[in-house]
């Protein structure tokens, strides 16, 4: 098999453009919204109110127990039959955010629980109500614990955006499908798309290390 290098180099541009215009913003927006959901769901699960905790538990269970592809299809193809038609982009963001929220909620909950109980007590001693204690004392420390697993979630999310090509979102993988269909060079284009995902994820891993170093700066860490 010969590699069609001119096609390879010609297609890098459009694919990278699709990544910058599609994959990356989709991942960033979904992750940001997903984290809001995740923190809310984690706090709800830790709530003293049984009803709130129960709702959060149900949400997490449903999200983790059903495939992302099903979520995407339900939102994009299913909801129109209920009279609710959503464009590809918003559909993708909704489904991905819900997904991230469900998975990250458990990470956030574990991180909050991992903070020493004494920190809560010290915050209470200083006179903080629960909410302030959480915001100023507990969450900053939980962030350190949560960073590695959340980076994992984010990297998965970047790759999961390729599923949105099935609901017509014009992100990188969809672009590679289009070019492959036109040129009949399937192997080349799909491997190339894979390489570009890999490059993005390498950059993210570097970002993760930098962030961990920053969060660890006030803590004596065994290395």
């Amino acid at each position, binding site marked *: 098999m010969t590699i069609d290098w001119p096609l390879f180099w010609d297609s890098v541009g459009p694919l990278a453009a699709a990544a910058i215009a599609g994959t990356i913003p989709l991942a960033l927006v979904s992750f940001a919204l997903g984290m809001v959901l995740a923190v809310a769901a984690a706090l709800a699960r830790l709530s*003293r109110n049984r009803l709130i905790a129960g709702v959060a538990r149900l949400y997490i269970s449903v999200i983790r127990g059903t495939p992302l592809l099903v979520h995407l299809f339900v939102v994009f193809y299913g909801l129109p039959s209920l009279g609710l038609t959503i464009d590809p982009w918003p559909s993708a963001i909704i489904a991905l955010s819900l997904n991230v929220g469900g998975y990250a909620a458990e990470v956030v909950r574990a991180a909050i629980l991992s903070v020493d109980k004494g920190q809560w007590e010290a*915050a*209470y001693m*200083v*006179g903080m109500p629960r909410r302030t204690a959480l915001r100023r*004392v507990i969450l900053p420390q939980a962030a350190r614990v949560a960073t590695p697993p959340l980076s994992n979630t984010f990297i998965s999310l970047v790759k999961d955006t390729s599923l949105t090509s099935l609901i017509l979102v014009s992100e990188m993988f969809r672009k590679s499908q289009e070019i492959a269909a036109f040129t009949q060079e399937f192997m080349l284009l799909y491997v190339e798309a894979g390489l570009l995902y890999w490059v993005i994820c390498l950059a993210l891993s570097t970002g993760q290390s930098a962030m961990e170093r920053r969060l660890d700066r*006030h*803590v004596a860490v065994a290395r």
Partner: protein
Amino acid sequence: MSPSPANTPAEPLLSVSAVSKAFGDHQVLRAVDLEVARGEVVAIIGASGSGKTTLLRSLNGLETPDAGVVTAGGVAVDFGALAAAKPALADRQRAALRDKSAMVFQHYHLFPHRTVLQNVTEGPIVVQKRPREEAEREAYALLKRVGLSDKADAYPHRLSGGQQQRVGIVRALALKPEPAAVRRAHVRPRSGTRRRCVAAHARPCRGGMDHGRGHARTPIRTRGCHAGGLPGRGQRAGDRSATRYSVSRARSARGSLSAGSRTRCKWQSPRRRRRCPQWALMVPSRPSARPGGHPRWNPRRTPDVAHSRQPKE
């Protein structure tokens, strides 16, 4: 800050009445009564597992007793009624109690993501909403008194255990707890530092503490032990299942503490007798009437604390 009733000697600044607490089947506190007047230093002594910690944590609302009333600086919380109350109300009551006291934890529990200065000013700025410059000025003054001025911008993990403990003390004092600062004495700073710490607290009328093993050498006079209403008086050591501890009191003379004898506890073995209280609780006295300061503590000889006078507030 509550005004004058606390200034009348008859009125206890802190009182505990009939406080009980059980963890499962284990009755830790059995109707404990305790009253502490202004200017008094009280050490609570007892074998491990006898409920000292539980009692002190109850004073700060960190533990919720099953029954009993804690009154601190005019705020009374009936824990028996609290159990039935709504969680939000219970939280508010505990918060009110916390406003009146401060605590130094056995393991310090400094905020690791904040500098020493931020640890100290967190309460005054975030909770008490005091102006930043004022809070920082006071924090610097307090840190100077415990010899940690140069560590203000360090993070806790850079400090030694003893230094962390002193930051914990300063953090508690910065809250200006009106009736009492409560402290678990555990680590024993070297004697020079210890004396400075004690002096730093004892003299300027905010609350204090007593240090570990070297209690006999710290300038606190204890008047032996008496188990004022506390259960288990005179029980033999070794009977670990029973609740027993004693309160040793030191009345400060005119607001400053005087050098004194060692703590005695009847039921402790001779070897243990020499040990000092593991818990100490001190209620602030009014500012010293003795301008020269403490008889054994001479500020002029310790340059580090030469400026330790309480700043004008």
